[in-house]
């Protein structure tokens, strides 16, 4: 027995063990590379903000441009130096609103179905399909809008009512694009509601419908709101679909059947043309980019605030 014990302790090279601090190189290496990876993403963000800010500043410093007119002007006509963001912003809001009209109700329905009603088999079948929907290149969605949805709308509402390029069609297809995003984040939020709350509901003689809609949904509200806000910021920033299907040329209208260029669509068109680098047109797209960046940033901050503010509700 005694021998055995000696043998075991000999197997550790413990004779010279001191309490002195040691350097562990592999730990430092891993820590360092993780830090670098994080650092690069922050560096990229900072670089984007810097470029956007610098070029936008150049734009606002031009004598032709006034910030007040930029924010309230109703015409965007760079060739005669009119830079009013409203026509572009309105159509961005219009396509976003149409998209959310599709994505929120459908996305939530899908989320509730997947999380509460679908059997495991059905869920395992449907979720990958939903993810494929999110993985289709947006240019494909754009041409789907232009060559399928638009003719359909023109068939239903009449060719005089619906223009070939229109914000409604782009918005509808954008809604389909964003649906999986909202569905998937909302489903996570629903699935995170503890089983004990559902049991409490059933234990009180509640039906499945009452448990799902009066206990689980309210308890998951913070996650669902965050999903919706992320969806909105995705819609605001979406580019290819609107560039292809929503129309070229700023147009101040709230009619979803008319063509109107969004902020992103305008940036694509202008930067695709042959602009000289120091023209005012060129600088103007950076101002638009800055507005886009700030609005999605604001929405992200709001969504984080909502999640944090209501997170502990059921813990």
């Amino acid at each position, binding site marked *: 027995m005694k021998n055995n014990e000696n043998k075991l302790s000999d197997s550790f090279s413990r004779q010279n063990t001191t309490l002195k601090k040691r350097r562990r190189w592999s730990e430092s290496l891993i820590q360092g590379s993780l830090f670098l990876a994080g650092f690069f993403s922050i560096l990229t963000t900072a670089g984007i903000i810097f470029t956007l800010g610098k070029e936008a500043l150049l734009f606002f410093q031009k004598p032709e441009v006034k910030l007040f007119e930029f924010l309230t002007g109703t015409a965007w006509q760079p060739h005669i130096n009119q830079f009013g963001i409203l026509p572009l912003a309105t159509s961005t809001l219009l396509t976003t609103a149409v998209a959310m009209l599709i994505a929120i109700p459908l996305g939530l329905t899908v989320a509730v179905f997947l999380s509460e009603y679908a059997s495991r088999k059905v869920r395992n079948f449907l979720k990958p399909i939903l993810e494929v929907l999110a993985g289709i290149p947006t240019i494909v969605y754009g041409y789907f809008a232009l060559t399928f949805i638009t003719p359909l709308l023109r068939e239903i509402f009449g060719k005089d009512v619906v223009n070939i390029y229109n914000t409604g069609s782009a918005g509808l297809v954008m809604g389909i694009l964003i649906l999986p995003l909202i569905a998937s984040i909302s489903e996570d939020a629903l699935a995170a509601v503890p089983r004990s709350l559902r049991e409490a509901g059933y234990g009180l*003689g509640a039906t499945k419908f009452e448990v799902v809609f009066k206990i689980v949904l309210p308890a998951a509200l913070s996650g669902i709101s965050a999903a919706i806000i992320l969806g909105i910021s995705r819609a605001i920033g979406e580019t290819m679909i609107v560039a292809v299907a929503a129309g070229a040329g700023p147009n101040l209208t709230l009619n979803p059947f008319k063509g109107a260029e969004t902020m992103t669509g305008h940036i694509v068109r202008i930067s695709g043309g042959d602009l000289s680098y120091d023209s005012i047109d060129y600088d103007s797209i950076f101002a638009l980019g800055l507005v886009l960046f700030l609005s999605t940033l604001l929405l992200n901050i709001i969504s984080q605030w909502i999640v944090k503010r209501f997170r502990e509700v059921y813990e």
Partner: protein
Amino acid sequence: MLQNDVILETHDLKIYYGDFKAVTDVNIQIPQKRITSIIGPSGCGKSTLLRAFNRMNELVPSSHIEGEIIFDGKNLYDRDVDPVQVRYRIGMVFQRPNPFPKSIYENVAWAARIHGYKGSLDELVETTLIKAALWDEVKDILKQSALSLSGGQQQRLCVARALAIQPEVILMDEPASALDPIATLKIEELMQSLKENYTIVIVTHNMQQAARASDYTAMMMLVEGTRSGTVIEFDETNKVFTRPGDKRTEDYVTGRFG
């Protein structure tokens, strides 16, 4: 025990999860307006048996039962019985306090509202909270979130929530196991005051709790050589604890088990 004092009665009850038989051959009669405790080692099917009384096991899709549970002259598992109605009349309090993330008031009023309660909700909330011995502590903060209460208060709120729809039986699944001794004592006092009007069935790990708080005791244990639990002894509590009829019960309640 007189036959008309019995509120729940099992006949050759077997409970399965898929192919696994968790509980086998249970034949007991739960007396009305008494506290019945179910005791026994971990994993012998106490909670499973308890959850069979209000068909909560059905939330696990693979579960099914054989045999009968008679309640109010009717087999709870007959084809024409609605589990929602069963749970309306046989309420439940869970192991960990699980109040809804809503206000204290709303927790009590919620079930009454979904069952179409016609009277004054304010009155109902007040009388129910008084019954649950919680009113004095919460009467000024009814609009606050139930999650701001302490664990013990939350559990009494869960009892109140169950009482609000006036069930006939209240099932309690180790209701004090997550609470400190003082909060535990309050739950036990509450149980004593409730048994005038309600039948209580409680699963507990705590021998002293079963001994001091319950009128009847069901002792459960695994059937030798299997993984299925069954009730090996069912009698008045003081008999089970002082003159047990089964050697295994004696070993268990005196702590000489295993």
